[in-house]
């Protein structure tokens, strides 16, 4: 099926024009000779992008060797409501499932020679150059964490000032930019088509904002060649991504170096930043996502410090800084940042009330999902009361800049702490 589509769509002339029209500036920005391996260009066109699914039978659009560098272009995906389904049951299911955002547009797949199931793909993010605009949407009553409360829609275009690394959301409110691919991942082991919305052991739609320029993703290979995709390009995102959208943009350049690592055992993706190793867990239920993240973190700490699992579990609350990545991609996600520096003995604060630097709300409940709902909704309301933002602006700002940290998770009362830096409010410059 997909083969016929691709065949029907591929026209060599179109591909040639696409390459020709890849902006000269994108290339001039990066001095190709300094990049490791052979450098490949991959512009985003109808032919080089997939739509909405990961399918390990998808013919690759590019083949590279281990150690090569790819300069990819990505597309913004439409926030449409295109959904399949015909029978009453299918229609009902679609409505109740709340399918998350419309299918993503993903550039790829890239076939990496020698990558076999059981290997690990090391993907170093060398550089990200977004286009100069971004958007944030609320699709009325459809998606996001609070579709019932937000029946009205809004769309905002933001100018991305990459020199100052900020985007002005409203006069006097500036969101710092930290571009990262919301979705980057490989094919699953299972044959067939899988929605690109939920993340998993193949990485995918992780929406982890630590995966920015300079970070490296380690992801287990599940299919021959790995089959690497990326899309859902973000310019900045809050931990939680509550209204479903970050500052959504398209990348002029997503510059990655891909290496195949043999002989390493890895069952879930990990991210390495200059200072931390990030572990993660995903599930429809935030409680179970926490369990997953915890298991991964314990495993990592035990490896890193060469201690037993029990000791690692005891150590974890002291050194692992866990955040709610997102709660809107069908499978919710929690990621934990573990310092490389073994001397670090504490994690950033989990305040329970407003501090000098942050607006703070806390949600407490036996159910982590409810705790997260309460904390984020409280922050959205706080923004309206304290800062005089409109409902939809509060929702959008929370989605783009809120930071939901995981607090106490063991006892009867689980707690989530949502923080919003006061530094977003700058004294009006004009």
């Amino acid at each position: 099926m997909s083969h016929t589509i691709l065949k029907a769509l591929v026209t060599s002339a179109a591909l040639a024009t696409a390459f020709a029209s890849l902006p000269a500036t994108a290339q001039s920005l990066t001095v190709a000779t300094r990049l490791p391996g052979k450098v490949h260009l991959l512009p985003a066109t109808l032919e080089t992008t997939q739509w909405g699914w990961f399918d390990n039978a998808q013919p690759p659009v590019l083949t590279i060797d281990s150690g090569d560098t790819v300069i990819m272009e990505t597309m913004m995906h439409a926030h449409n409501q295109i959904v399949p389904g015909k029978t009453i049951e299918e229609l009902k299911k679609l409505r109740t499932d709340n399918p998350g955002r419309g299918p993503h547009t993903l550039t790829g797949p890239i076939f990496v020679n020698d990558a076999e199931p059981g290997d690990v793909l090391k993907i170093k993010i060398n550089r990200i150059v977004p286009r100069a605009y971004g958007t944030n949407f609320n699709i009325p009553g459809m998606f996001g964490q609070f579709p019932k409360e937000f029946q009205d829609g809004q769309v905002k275009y933001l100018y991305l000032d990459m020199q100052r690394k900020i985007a002005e959301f409203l006069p006097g409110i500036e969101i710092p930019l930290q571009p990262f691919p919301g979705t980057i991942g490989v094919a699953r082991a299972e044959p067939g088509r899988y929605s690109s919305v939920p993340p998993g052991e193949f990485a995918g739609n992780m929406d982890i904002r630590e995966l920015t320029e300079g970070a490296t993703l380690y992801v287990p290979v599940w299919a021959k060649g790995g089959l690497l995709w990326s899309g859902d390009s973000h310019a900045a995102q809050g931990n939680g991504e509550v209204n479903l959208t970050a500052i959504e943009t398209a990348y002029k350049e997503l510059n990655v170096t891909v290496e195949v690592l043999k002989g390493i055992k890895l069952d879930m993706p990990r991210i390495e930043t200059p200072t931390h190793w990030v572990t993660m867990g995903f599930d429809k239920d935030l409680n179970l996502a926490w369990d997953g993240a915890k298991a991964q973190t314990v495993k990592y700490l035990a490896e890193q410090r060469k201690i037993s699992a029990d000791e690692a579990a005891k150590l974890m609350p002291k050194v692992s800084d866990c955040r709610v990545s997102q709660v809107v991609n069908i499978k919710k996600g929690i990621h934990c940042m573990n310092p490389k520096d073994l001397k670090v003995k504490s994690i950033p604060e989990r305040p329970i009330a407003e501090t000098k630097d942050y607006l703070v709300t806390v949600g407490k409940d036996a159910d982590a999902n409810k705790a997260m709902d309460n904390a984020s909704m409280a922050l959205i309301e706080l923004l309206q009361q304290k800062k005089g933002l409109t409902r939809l602006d509060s929702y959008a700002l929370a989605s783009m800049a809120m930071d939901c940290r995981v607090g106490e998770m063991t006892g009867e009362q689980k707690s989530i702490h949502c923080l919003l830096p006061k530094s977003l409010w700058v004294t009006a410059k004009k």
Partner: protein
Amino acid sequence: MSQNGRLAVRFLCLGFLLLLAPWAQAALSVVTTTTDLKSLVEAVGGNRVSVVSLAPAGSDAEDYAPRPQDLDRLRDARIIVRVGLDYDLWLDRMLRQTGNPALMRGGAGHVDSSYAIVLLEVKGAGLSDGGHSHGAGNPHYWLDPANAEIITGNIAEALVRLDPANAKHYEQRRIDFLTRLEQRIRLWQTQLAPLAGKPLLTYHNNWPYFARRFRLNFVGTIEPRSGVAPSPAALSVLIRRMRDEQVSFIVRHPQDPARDVDFLARKAGARVAILAASVGDLPQAKDYFSLFDTNVAALTAAYSESKP
């Protein structure tokens, strides 16, 4: 009979009537924006529903100006079925006026029958404020008879939701309808098979879904935008194309201006077929089935006339 006895009889009668009342009221009142949807709701609901279409037969539902009585019709309705996309925007203001949350977007009685349809000509430049998507796609999707499967699915889902007691009835009727429809689609496809790929022209762009199902090749639209007459340059291009590609007939629907169509037909020696874009546009197009019967007949007639 004593006074008391008569009174008792009266009470009994009254009680009996009250018992009957739910039966009398049982017909679920449904309001649709167009006659096509009315026909489809009737197909699924049968005698368990009473359906009214706001835009009457033969009117242009896209530019319909609601009347005061329509508000009453909406107030009494339990379900509203709409075309959606940009087609019946006038409904939104009326719904706000009636203020019944169940009928509002997202409410239990609100059916946007475009849900899950494979849309054509989606030009949408994204969401605008209010979340309404402009250029959300060509809205004439009911003209692909196969789409009735999805439309009736959306309708049946709402009927079952609000009237679960009759769920079996609705689902069975829908399946019967779809079975009959499938046979008819095959018949229509055979009838239109000789026209497959043959170039033709339309006045208003309401036929892409129809064209897709029956493999018709609409090479152009006479009006450049809805309600805008073609310019002389556009007309001369059309005439040239009609001569070059041997376009042998033009379709329009009864509300479209005859002048421009007749002019082109005269210049290029083509036939004109008048098609119904909605149930009731032509007297023969009484319901969803006869809508296609009429159109298929008109097309095949025009085609056989146009053959030298």
